[in-house]
């Protein structure tokens, strides 16, 4: 399913932070996980995901580590820093408040 780019822009960081709050992942794994959870409705584009990961790393929300996987391949894993955990909680709260307000307005408009 295609979503409006502007609509997605504000939620990319939240999605990444939320996924990484559960476990460390590498880029490809984040894409697969978001596909699985959204039942193939949402897929991160590489051109969106990797620059966003680097931006969050620059802000100090993510730490990185190269690890060797089971097949012997080196992959760059991302995980949350303490600042990243705080940011994830804050963003999630903001998101629920925001969507609550939007839903309230939309449901009034429909009724």
């Amino acid at each position: 399913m295609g979503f409006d780019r502007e609509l997605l822009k504000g939620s990319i960081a939240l999605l990444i932070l939320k996924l990484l709050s559960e476990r460390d992942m590498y880029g490809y794994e984040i894409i697969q996980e978001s596909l699985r959870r959204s039942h193939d409705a949402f897929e991160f584009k590489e051109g969106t995901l990797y620059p966003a990961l680097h931006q969050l790393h620059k802000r100090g929300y993510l730490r990185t580590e190269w690890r060797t996987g089971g097949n012997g391949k080196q992959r760059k894993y991302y995980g949350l820093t303490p600042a990243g955990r705080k940011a994830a909680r804050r963003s999630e709260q903001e998101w629920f408040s925001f969507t609550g307000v939007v839903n309230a307005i939309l449901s009034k408009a429909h009724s």
Partner: protein
Amino acid sequence: MTHLDDIVTRVILRAKLPGRKRGREVAEELRAHLDDLVEEMRSQGYDDEAAARMARMRFGEPQEIAAAFASVYAPERWARRIVQATLLCAASTMVVVVVVGTVQSIAAICAAQPILSTLREIYQEGFGFGAITAGYCSLYAGERLFPTSLAKAALPSVVLGLCLAAVFACAIPQHAALPLVAFACAASGRLLQRLEMPFLWLAGTALPLLIAWVLFGPLIPCWEFPWLVWLGLTISCKALREIVRLFERVLLADLA
């Protein structure tokens, strides 16, 4: 180089990431991602060639990914450029001071004048040293900003020259001509160095001096030794060229 490596290289080249290490790390990360995509396609039954083609399609346009990376690292890139430009200007000014100081010392020895008093007077020529560096480096900066158009490349030099003319006219109205001529000589020297014709660049510094002779003549205090002025400027331009080459080899290579 495989086709997938080529995609990664295109992203890295266009992304203009600050620092070789970061470039290598992003390249490895993207390459690993492409390998995962290929593996996924193979597991779905595609042969190697089709899997690579599908992976490339899924990966997206290298230009778009590069543009997104470039935007993330733009502040670091500009900070690096400012530091590099400052280092280049500082090194260039030092070189000019050493070259002109050496030429003047040799001239003082030849004229049987005391070297120490000659060297003490050098600090008075600060405007001149700054002007030589500014003339040369402004044209070099223009070349980097507008590599395909000489007219546009000269724009920073023209603008800076006009600004310096205004500053010198206010700060040192009696002696404004010499640093301005030095500025023009250095920019002109750099201009003719671009032509890569043997010895032609020597005329780059001579031409503005000849024009100054016609226009200002007696206004230039040390005009009694025009060859000395020319020699100092010419050797300075040659030394600045080497500094710029060193700068490109050592500092700019880090951006590649």
